């Protein structure tokens, strides 16, 4: 009798957890197979000498792969290029997104069409966006050259992508074009939560347009701002497809960004150990950046 009453709720529990876990397990299995397992595998790889051209000699080397990649010449170049790229693109994308959102938030007839257009660069494959910009920037027939020449700004065609001094800027430009829609939408959503009454009150207090923006609008956009900064930094640091179709890391090493470096170490030089070490360094750097952003925003909040 005592046994029977004890098992009944247990049985009910078991049946319900069958459904519960049954709905989650397929997802857990897929995610584990394609992220957890690869992660562990890559972690092990990063501590071994694993070069596919020397398949039967894979000794444990501890942190040697990390030491080697960090002291290589390309590492410094890739880090510097990635920093330059992030500094060029993250503030530009954020500012442009904010500017466009402020513009689209104005009630003008016909702006609805623009809101729809804004999504387009973001919706297409990155590879397509990259090739599109290659056509625009081409040194022999690119329409950008044609346009600038017709406007009288340049007097001969400029090889944007094959000049080491200009290639980075060109890649950054394509990246900004592709990336600004997302911040625009987030900022626009943030702006739409600001009731006109607050701004009206500030206007009645004779606040200038800049003051209204700086002291009313901007503080209310803190949440989307943090998200945009974190997300766009992650995207800028891990950009790969664009470099692949636009420059291939060149000319020379002028657009060798970190993810491109990790890719070539792994797939061109088939050094899996170093490739894995590089990707872990990249992940670590991203996490640090995210933590710094969160700290900064929190400090601001406390001091304000």
């Amino acid at each position, binding site marked *: 009798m005592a046994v029977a009453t004890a098992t009944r709720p247990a049985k009910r529990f078991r049946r319900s957890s069958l459904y519960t876990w049954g*709905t*989650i397990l*397929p997802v857990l299995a*897929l995610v584990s197979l394609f992220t957890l397992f*690869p992660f562990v595998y890559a972690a092990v790889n990063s501590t071994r000498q694993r070069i596919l051209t020397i398949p039967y000699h894979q000794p444990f080397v501890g942190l040697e792969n990390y030491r080697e990649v960090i002291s290589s010449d390309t590492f410094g170049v890739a880090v510097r290029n990635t920093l330059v790229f992030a500094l060029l693109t993250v503030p530009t994308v954020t500012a442009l997104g904010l500017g466009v959102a402020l513009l689209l938030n104005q009630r003008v007839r016909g702006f609805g069409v623009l809101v729809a257009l804004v999504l387009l660069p973001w919706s*297409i*494959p990155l590879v397509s966006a990259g090739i599109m910009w290659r056509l625009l920037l081409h040194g022999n027939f690119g329409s950008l050259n*044609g346009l600038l020449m017709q406007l009288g700004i340049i007097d001969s065609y400029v090889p944007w992508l094959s000049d080491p001094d200009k290639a980075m800027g060109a890649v950054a430009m394509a990246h900004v074009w592709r990336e600004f829609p997302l911040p625009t939408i987030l900022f626009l*959503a943030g702006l739409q939560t600001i009731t006109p009454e607050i701004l009206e009150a500030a206007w009645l207090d004779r606040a200038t347009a800049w003051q209204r923006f700086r002291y009313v609008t901007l503080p209310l956009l803190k949440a989307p701002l943090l998200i945009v900064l974190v997300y766009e930094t992650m995207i800028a640091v891990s950009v790969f497809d664009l470099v692949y*179709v636009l420059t291939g890391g060149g000319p020379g090493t002028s657009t060798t960004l970190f993810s491109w470096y990790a890719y070539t170490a792994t797939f061109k030089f088939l050094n899996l150990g170093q490739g894995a070490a590089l990707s872990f360094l990249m992940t670590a750097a991203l996490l640090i950046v995210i933590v710094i952003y969160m700290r900064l925003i929190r400090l601001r909040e406390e001091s304000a």
Partner: protein
Amino acid sequence: MKRGPVQTTLLVAAALVLGIMILLPFLWALSASLQTESALFERPPHWVPDPATTENYKYVFTGDVPQAYEVRGLLRSPVTQEARTLPDGLRNSFIVAFFVVLINLVLGALAAYTFARERFRGGQAAFVFILGSRLLPAVAVAIPIYMILRELGLLDTKLSLVLVHSAFTLPFTIWVLTLYFQSLPREMEEAARVDGATRFDALRYVVLPLAAPGLAAVGAFAFLFSYSEFMFALLTTSTTNAKTVPVMISAISVNPDASYTLIAVGIILSVAAPMALALVFRRYITSGLVASLTRE
């Protein structure tokens, strides 16, 4: 805070600049795809194709070599068979993306409903694990995934792309749908349960119809991700059996034998579907993005 005519003019001017900035790359690719190779290289550029020709498109779909390319000698324009694989690529991309969407909607909705309504041991950990899996950059897991697929004999198959893309999109889907389901009132589900409906019935007949906008949003995201994904498709596919559009157009674009007009055709064919999807689903996409990124 009334606007004067000067301010309105400035706003409209800024809007025009923005519109041109967004559309110029698209329009130039479209224009280039409708030109002959020799016209494309003339200076100043023909903004409107002159002469306009649809022969580049015809070549991709039928194999009829455009007349302009049959000029002999140095002026002969390069033409590549590779461009003719584009229709296969489009087919592969659509098939893969379709199944990725299907898996996301079915498995994602089932898991998200459980996460949204059940409290059970390990649930929180499973949720965090699934979401946290997206923190790893693709480069970090690319090689091991390649090895797994090779072991399973799945290299160069559409199935492998469906599995990998699903693993990469499900976390986001579950995140958005869990928030969505939590925002729905419980009362109707509870009423259904009292009337004897199972949890699956409640999900199927009560929750899902209410959650249609959320499902549309995650479906659109899954489609766009899968359709655009490049690195894994590049690494694991090798023939027209599974190569997707991004892999094909990237190959054509770095092929020195490809004419720029054909590259432009590739661009237009590759962007048509995602652009149409973004326009049709834009309301769901924007609200889905905003909901997923701005809630804790």
